[in-house]
């Protein structure tokens, strides 16, 4: 005879609990944490590297890199002299909170103010997995086209900021900037847009300012 047991438990609750632990740990050290998501090639690593350079002397940066394979990205970031750890998922299409928790072990949290987590290049899967971040950042790029928010609504709905990269290519690509902005604000009226070019440096000052403001307004450290 079968008995029904009511469960009503979120499948991702185990991940969410670890993410909450990560968030507490990072918060206790006064670290502003970004979960940076985008398709492969949009410019996640470039934005991270440019951000580190822009924030030199203002916010100390650390990076966690996530890729299926290789340490290409973490090696690039390491040339800037900041603490960086590479996670290789070995096939997994997104980072999860446990992987980040493992990466944080031994990470010099006392020496950083801003942690940038570069998620696996993917517009879909990372959206379901909290990592312990304060802010979700979506990076789009001009060559990808202005329809990406419509095709991948969940990511652009969740993101507190959208960095539109490769603005230097706007004259050469059929990309309607007004339509793109409208689509982003339609999905999330509160999200901030930063139109940048990692190639020329345009637009990155405003992005850096916003991050400094974000760090300054973090809840007080737990003593």
């Amino acid at each position, binding site marked *: 005879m*079968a*008995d029904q047991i009511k469960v*009503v438990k979120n*499948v*991702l609750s185990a991940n969410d609990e670890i993410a909450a632990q990560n968030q507490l740990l990072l918060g206790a050290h006064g670290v502003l944490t970004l979960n940076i998501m985008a398709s492969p090639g949009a410019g996640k690593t470039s934005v991270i590297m440019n951000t580190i350079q822009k924030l030199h002397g203002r916010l100390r940066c650390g990076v966690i890199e996530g890729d299926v394979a290789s340490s290409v990205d973490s090696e690039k970031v390491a040339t800037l002299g900041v603490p960086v750890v590479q996670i290789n998922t070995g096939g997994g*299409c997104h980072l999860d909170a446990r992987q980040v928790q493992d990466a944080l072990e031994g990470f010099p949290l006392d020496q950083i103010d801003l942690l940038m987590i570069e998620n696996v290049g993917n517009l879909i899967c990372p959206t*379901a997995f909290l990592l312990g971040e304060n802010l979700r950042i979506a990076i789009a790029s001009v060559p990808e086209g202005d329809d990406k928010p419509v095709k991948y609504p969940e990511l652009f709905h969740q993101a507190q900021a959208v960095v539109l990269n490769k603005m230097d290519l706007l004259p050469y690509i059929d990309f309607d900037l007004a339509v793109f902005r409208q689509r982003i604000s339609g999905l999330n009226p509160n999200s901030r847009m930063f139109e940048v070019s990692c190639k020329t440096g345009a637009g990155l000052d405003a992005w850096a300012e916003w991050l400094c403001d974000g760090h300054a307004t973090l809840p007080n450290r737990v003593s």
Partner: protein
Amino acid sequence: MHELAVTQQVLNIALQHAEEAHAKRIHEIEIVIGDMTSFVNDAVQFCFDALSKGTIAEGAALSFRRVPVTIRCRECGAVFTPDDLDLTCPDCEAYAGEVIAGREFYIDHIEVE
């Protein structure tokens, strides 16, 4: 594979509740999945079949309850279910939708013996 880790969570939750109830066998697990999430029934089933071998959940039937996406238009207030994930309002054509259902991903109940 995408659904492998989450299906392991489904199994863990089901086994935990079954053990607490001193159950011998899990016959059914009802999983609620919102259409806005990236999870696909067949992939969950496939992973479950592999992961549950040797446990009291082996052979359990997974029943999937899909929750359609429901949008409320921020411009005109219309509430609608889009045909696909197109959030354009059918009434005023604004692209200004708030997702009010469709993000669910939970185990509703299990049936045990």
